């Protein structure tokens, strides 16, 4: 019997897997933890707002710069990474640890389809966890009697949302690959995100292009937000090139993850 595949069936299978994964990911302790992280980020926005409102610092930053700092550090370099690391590495490895992978593999669904479905769930849950935090941070920092900055900087928010989404997609695909491939995927993910990307950021030349964060920071709309970032800002990659690279990287990681899932033998411990 030749393996037949139709787009309609494929999409239906992707959705079924996505909903199953979303259900198991969402209603788990992981989500509580991620909500806590999001609340902490919102707490930082509140602190920023308090500092600005009470004029606690003589030469205070404008809301836009506070928002930019929050986005650059706590959202992109913390929340997005933790959400995608946490959920992304768990996509396959939790099925292996929980020994439920057998149920998926014993269905008439191609393994790459399983990977795509799980990745779709990861993107959904990442967006649900992170994007409202971005919106609410903006609200917290900008809502005041004088609403002009709120409306003036809406364009920046409008750019931030797709960038955060792109970051979720890129990091999510990378950590999904790690989770499908390696045993200690969280550790490797942490070493990559906070070791490699942190270390390479301060290296001159081409090496910084070997990180996801370089391309994300290159398309970030916020200006000289932090001194630590200014080196990166000074050596940006063009916006179109960055976006294309991120999209290609995402596609590459997900394809590779699908291939790994297809060819790897997962031995569930008895």
């Amino acid at each position, binding site marked *: 019997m030749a393996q037949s595949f139709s787009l309609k069936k494929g999409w239906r299978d992707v959705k079924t897997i996505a909903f199953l994964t979303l259900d198991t990911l969402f209603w788990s*302790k*992981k989500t509580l*933890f991620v909500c806590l*992280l999001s609340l*902490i980020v919102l707490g*930082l926005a509140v*602190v*920023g707002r308090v*500092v600005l409102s009470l004029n*606690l*610092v003589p*030469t205070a*930053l404008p809301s836009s*710069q*506070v928002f930019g*700092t*929050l986005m650059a*550090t*706590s959202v992109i*370099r*913390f929340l997005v990474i*933790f959400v995608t*690391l*946490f959920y992304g*590495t*768990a996509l396959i*490895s*939790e099925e292996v*640890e929980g020994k439920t992978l057998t149920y998926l593999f014993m269905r008439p669904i191609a393994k790459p389809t399983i990977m795509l479905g799980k990745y779709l769930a990861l993107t959904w849950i990442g967006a649900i966890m992170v994007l409202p935090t971005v919106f609410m941070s903006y609200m917290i920092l900008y809502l005041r009697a004088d609403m002009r900055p709120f409306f003036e900087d809406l364009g920046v928010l409008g750019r931030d949302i797709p960038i955060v989404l792109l970051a979720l997609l890129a990091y999510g695909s990378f950590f999904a690959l790690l989770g499908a491939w390696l*045993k*200690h995927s*969280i*550790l490797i993910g*942490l*070493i990559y995100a*906070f*070791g490699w990307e942190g270390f390479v950021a301060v290296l001159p030349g081409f090496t910084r292009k070997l990180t996801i964060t370089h391309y994300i920071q290159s398309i970030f709309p916020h200006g000289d*937000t*932090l001194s*630590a970032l200014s080196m990166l800002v000074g050596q940006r990659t063009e916006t179109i090139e960055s976006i294309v690279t991120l999209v290609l990287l995402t596609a590459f990681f997900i394809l590779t993850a699908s291939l790994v899932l297809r060819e790897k033998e997962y031995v569930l411990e008895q």
Partner: protein
Amino acid sequence: MPIHDLSYSHWTGEWTSHPYRWWVITRQGITMLAKKRGFLVLLFLSLIPFLVRCVMLYVAVVMGRITLVKVDAKFFEAFLSQQLFATFIISIFAGAGLIANDLKANALQIYFSKAITRRDYLIGKLGIVVFFVTLSTLIPGLLLFFLAAAFHSSLEFLQEYSWVMLPIIGYSLIIIFTNALIVLAMSALNRSARFAGIFFAAVVFFGQILYSILAVLLRTTSVSWVSISHNLTQLGDVLFRSDPGYKTSPWISALVLLIWMLGSVWIIHSRVRAVEVVK
């Protein structure tokens, strides 16, 4: 009696004294981790800065290129501060599953049905993380010092820098116990080693993020106490008699770290029980 009785008989020999029972757990944990090739690779990689610094010592002292590398107290402090990331990774690998896996497998009942106390169990588990973090901090730190002393042809180095040994030991111990206790606390809070590792990472990195935001907002470095790693480096600066990197009082840094450690001990103590009380 010509035919000997080979059936079961009670132990009539000497019982080992109680103070060493924790060592059984530590030894077993170390043996199991030492069998993991990945972990050994990680340990080796964590020692690369040590090897680089040995070469630097050689270049500076033996080859006389003192203008390139200055071998002073800051040299040793910089090495230990550089090892913070490595100790974080080693702590996660070695420590995240130590208590979490036992909770998941309901193994605590088995442990406490033997002649060990809760203290033995906790010290035993702590010993595993302490052992491996020591391998990447205290031991290479002291070795670097002895190597520096050995490379110098006279006693000049020792006369000037013999005091550095104590800060090496002190700073290393602070790093070791901060990492070990917090990672064990995270392990005790979860039934999954994965969660424990992520929690620990979140605690460490969130502090750094928080500091960077507050420093920008408030235009001051006196908020460095919010970050564990910044507190560690602040204490390192003070111990090695360098100018502190942040405006935070070292006493506050020390206090914050102490609170983290005591809080971790409290968490571990309250979570590790032989019997689960269901209300």
